[in-house]
């Protein structure tokens, strides 16, 4: 096979994987603390895509045209408002449930996910939206092109990798090195005990939703800048895939989410590059089912013990 084609698929796969990893973080953190799948998380990512386009258009209408300033302000605004949405989702759909039936949080999650999809469909219209290309320019390896063959990396893709690494770095620092992170880890290990020791677990759950949504916000900005188009339904498929990444890496584990994202991104990119593009989503879902059957604890997770 053409080594440049393989190289290009590796690049594409890493980009895709970084995005999946960023979104998977939200699933894995909520699952780790609350033991439930936050189905609305894909929708939070979808909201981030809309917010990105809105902030870009807003800044353009104010006449801001310096690319770094636009990028910084869009990222800041989108992440802040997406985090606010994540917080609101937890407040509206999960917190009032208390200790209800086992199905209640799942059904409530599906409900709020339908609400968010249709909220965007009704407020912004059902058509596919787009953003103008912001950063143009590519890096080619080798630079002069070996007989017309080269691996191409756009500036946006470089930015995606840098931002994903930065986002994960900040998150890891927050969780591992701050007192807030220590409280999060304590709540994940034993919620009742953490509460007895004076941790405000309600606040920690809010924090986890805000952090997860913020990461989804970063992913939303990056995807929108990279692909340039989105609609109100993108959260559905991307949500399932990011969840697959979280399960693949071992649900509840932060580095696992990133690793799962990369593995899934790479395998999806190779599958669509060398086998078939039409069935790439089928392939990703098949991975999900396969992992759940053969290794439900994932690559880096520990087996789950059901407690009475």
């Amino acid at each position, binding site marked *: 096979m053409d080594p440049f084609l393989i190289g290009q698929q590796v690049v594409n796969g890493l980009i895709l994987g970084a995005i999946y990893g960023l979104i998977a973080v939200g699933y894995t953190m909520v699952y780790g603390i609350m033991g439930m799948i936050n189905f609305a998380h894909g929708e939070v990512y979808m909201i981030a895509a809309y917010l990105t386009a809105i902030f870009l258009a807003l800044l353009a209408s104010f006449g801001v045209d310096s690319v770094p300033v636009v990028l910084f302000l869009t990222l800041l605004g989108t992440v802040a408002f997406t985090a606010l949405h994540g917080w609101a989702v937890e407040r509206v759909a999960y917190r009032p*449930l208390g200790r209800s039936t*086992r*199905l209640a949080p799942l*059904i409530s999650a599906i409900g709020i996910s339908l609400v968010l999809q*249709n909220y965007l469909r*009704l407020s912004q219209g059902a058509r596919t939206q*787009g953003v103008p290309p912001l950063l143009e320019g590519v890096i080619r390896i080798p630079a002069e092109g070996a007989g017309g063959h080269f691996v191409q990396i756009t500036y946006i893709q470089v930015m995606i990798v840098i931002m994903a690494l930065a986002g994960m770095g900040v998150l890891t620092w927050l969780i591992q090195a701050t007192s807030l992170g220590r409280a999060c880890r304590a709540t994940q290990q034993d919620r009742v005990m953490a509460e007895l020791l004076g941790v405000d677990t309600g606040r920690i759950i809010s924090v986890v939703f805000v952090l997860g949504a913020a990461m989804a916000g970063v992913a939303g900005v990056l995807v929108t800048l990279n692909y340039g188009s989105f609609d109100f339904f993108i959260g559905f498929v991307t949500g399932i895939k990011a969840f*697959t990444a979280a399960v693949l890496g071992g649900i509840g584990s932060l580095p696992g989410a990133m690793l799962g994202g990369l593995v899934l991104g790479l395998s999806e990119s190779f599958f669509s590059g060398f086998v078939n593009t039409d069935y790439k989503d089928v392939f990703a879902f098949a991975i999900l089912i396969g992992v759940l059957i053969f290794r439900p604890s994932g690559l880096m997770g520990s087996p789950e013990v*059901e407690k009475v």
Partner: protein
Amino acid sequence: MTGVAMVLRHSLWVALVALLLFFPLTGLLLDGYRLTWRWELPLQLAGGVFCLTLLGGLVRPLIGYWRSGRGLSGLVSSSFAGEGSASVAFFLRAAHGSRFRSLVRVSGFVLLLLVAVSLPFLLGKYWLNVATLALIYVLLGLGLNIVVGLAGLLDLGFVAFYAVGAYGLALGHLHLGLGFWEALPLGGLLAACFGVLLGFPVLRMHGDYLAIVTLGFGEIIRLVLNNWTAFTGGPNGVSAPFPTFFGLEFSRRPQAGETAFHQFFDIPFGNVHRYIFLYLVLLSVSVFLIFVIGRLRRMPLGRAWEALREDEIACRSLGIDPVGVKLSAFAMGAAIGGVGGVFFAASQGFVNPTSFGFHESALVLAIVVLGGLGSTVGTVLAALVVTILPEFLRDFADYRILVFGLAMVGMMIWRPRGLIRPRRPLYPSGEGG
């Protein structure tokens, strides 16, 4: 007074957050790469949120007061209940004796059935179609209710089994020359097989995973139907045959050697005959299934479904095989979904993958949740309301999924066990099992 002030302050805070949330997504309308400003919309929405929160905050103490008042009267009546309670119980038993109650129930049921049977002869073709679709959703609701309501397994890809049934009829006709009557049981069976195939590996795991796997499975089926053009016809879809009346076709000009329905009975050809017939078949299948589900719930299997929903570990310790019992519920629900799909394909005369998206699964789930998880009557009512109401409220049709989503969240917050308290088939200890 301070209470009211606190409610007011809280509502103001909520409205402020709501304004922040609504402002970018509703106040700024994306229009190509530019924005159109709509100042008034987020303000109105936040105002609405403010009013609702205020109302809720003011009404909640009243509800508490009312409840405590009722509790007081209950206390008073119970203190009087000592004397003569036996005679009261006797009269109550006489009035609501099981024979009397079952008489009321049976006559009500017969009346409803008469109305349902006569309905197609009174309705026009358009409303007949609506009624048929409503009954199809009744079937789907009944199927999913077994899985979600009774067995407590969240299936988010129920539409996959519906699609298997519908495509079973269409493709069976195209490739194997099957008719409606062969496809009806086969479609159900095929869907059940898919259910077992999917359920067997997944049901052994933690319950929440089932939700996401079924979600993925629903999408896989849709993608395969869409992309496997050579077999399924891809996005163009396939046509599906109509049922025959004991071998009689419903066409104006039957194929050579065949007799058409109107020729056999010597009546003028009516396009509506086939729809009336389909409706009646669908109605009888639905009634039969309601009966079967009612019986199943009293049987050991049905009781095991509900027991497993409540506490899996306790069930295991009592010797119930959780995987087998869950699998039976999953397959049963899938089979009913498949039968619903066969009827859908027959009533439309045509199927394509757009009918089997996630929204369909969500709609059926909304039916089951709004009907009260586990309640057959509730499911039937909810299916009728959810499909027929948007016909009357045309403006509402656009908002219906939004409203159903809100209703699902609301139900889980205030009534997680359903609007109608599910009546468990109980046996009084005196009569024995």
